[in-house]
C-alpha cells in the first residue's frame, strides 16, 4: 500500500509537481537519517548525507525501474552515499556529539531506559559500519533479508551471517559494559 502511494507521488513529481517530493522526504527522513547515522556515527555528517541521498534520488527518480519498492531503492542510495562520506571523511576527527551522553532528570523508568539505550549505542559503536547497518535495518522491522541484501549490495546469506555475528558481538559487548558498570558502583 505504502509503495503504491509512493509510486503515485513519484508519477506526479515526474509530471512536474516538484513540491510533492516533500511528502516522500517526510515519510523516509527518519529511517534515512538513522541509516546514515549508524554508518557515520556523526550527527551533522549523517544529516548532510541523508539530505544528499534525497537530492540524488530526486534527480534519478526517472531511472527508478519500480521492480523493487521505492524504499528499498532509496535506502540503497542512502547506504552508498553514507559509505562514500565515510571514505571521504575517514581522516577527520569524530564529532564529540556522538560521545555526548544525554542526561535527563526524568522518572527512574526513563532513566533506566536511557541507560540501556546508551549501553546499546556503546556496544553498537564497536561494530564495523556494514555489520551495524545490517543489524539496524534488520531491527527496523521493515525489511526482509532479501531487501537488506539489495540495499547493501550483498548476498542474502552474507547479510544473515553479518546480522548474527553483529548481534553476538553486541551481546558480548553489553556483557562487558555491564560488568564494568558493576565494578564502578
Amino acid at each position, binding site marked *: 500500500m505504502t509503495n503504491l502511494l509512493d509510486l503515485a507521488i513519484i508519477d506526479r513529481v515526474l509530471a512536474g509537481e*516538484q*513540491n510533492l*517530493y*516533500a511528502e516522500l*522526504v*517526510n515519510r523516509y*527522513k*527518519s*529511517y*534515512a*537519517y*538513522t541509516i546514515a*547515522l549508524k554508518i557515520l556515527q556523526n550527527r551533522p555528517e*549523517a*544529516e548532510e548525507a*541523508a*539530505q*544528499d541521498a*534525497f*537530492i*540524488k534520488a*530526486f*534527480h534519478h527518480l526517472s531511472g527508478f525501474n519500480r521492480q523493487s519498492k521505492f524504499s528499498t531503492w532509496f535506502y540503497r542510495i542512502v547506504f552508498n552515499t553514507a559509505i562514500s562520506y565515510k571514505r571521504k571523511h575517514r581522516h577527520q576527527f569524530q564529532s564529540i556529539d556522538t560521545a555526548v551522553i544525554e542526561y535527563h532528570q526524568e522518572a527512574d523508568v526513563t532513566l533506566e*531506559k536511557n541507560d*540501556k*539505550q546508551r*549501553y*546499546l549505542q556503546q*556496544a553498537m559503536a564497536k561494530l564495523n559500519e556494514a555489520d551495524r547497518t545490517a*543489524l*539496524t535495518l534488520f*531491527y*527496523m522491522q521493515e525489511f526482509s533479508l532479501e531487501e537488506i541484501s539489495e540495499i547493501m549490495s550483498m548476498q542474502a546469506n552474507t547479510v544473515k*551471517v553479518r*546480522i*548474527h555475528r553483529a*548481534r*553476538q558481538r*553486541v*551481546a*558480548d559487548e*553489553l*556483557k562487558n559494559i555491564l560488568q564494568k558498570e558493576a565494578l564502578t558502583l
Partner: protein
Amino acid sequence: MKKLSQHIEETLSDYLDGVLEPTRREAFEQLLRQDIELQKRLEALQAADSLLKQSTTEQPSKNFTSTVMSRLDQYPLRSGLSIRNGILLLVGVVVVMTTAVILLAAGAFNDTATLDLNSLTVTQRYIRQTLPSIAIDGKLMVNIIVLLNLALAFVVLDRAVLKPWFQRRMGTN
C-alpha cells in the same frame, strides 16, 4: 564461560529468530535443557535482541525537509574534482601535450624501433617457434598519446571547470 563453536552460535541465532525447523528446534531445546553455558548464552543474546527491538529511529533536524527541498536544484552535489584540482589536472595534461608536440616537431620520434621477440629470455625459454619482429613507430604512438590527452583535457575542462563554474554563477544570480 567456554567459547561456543560458530555452528552452535549460528543455531542459537536461528533459534532466537524462530527460523529453526521443528525437528531441529526440538533437538536444540533438548540440548539447551542440558547445557547451562548454552542457556546463559541464549539469555545474553535474548537481552541484546530485546534491547535492539526497543531501539528507536533517530530524528533529523526540524528543517531537514525544507533544506532538502531548497537544495533540489543543486546537482551534481559536488564533483569528485574541485575546480582548483581540475585546473591543476588540466594544466598537467596541457604541459604533457605541448611537450609531446614540441618533441614530435623536433623529430625526436622519427625513428622506427624494432622489437625482436626471439631475443627475449622468456620467449627463448618457453617458446620454440620463431616469433615475428614488431616494428614500433614512435611518432604514431606519441600521436595517439597526444590525442588521448586532448580528449582527457576536454572532459576535465567540461566536468571539473566549466560545469561547476556555470552552476555556481547560476546559483548566485
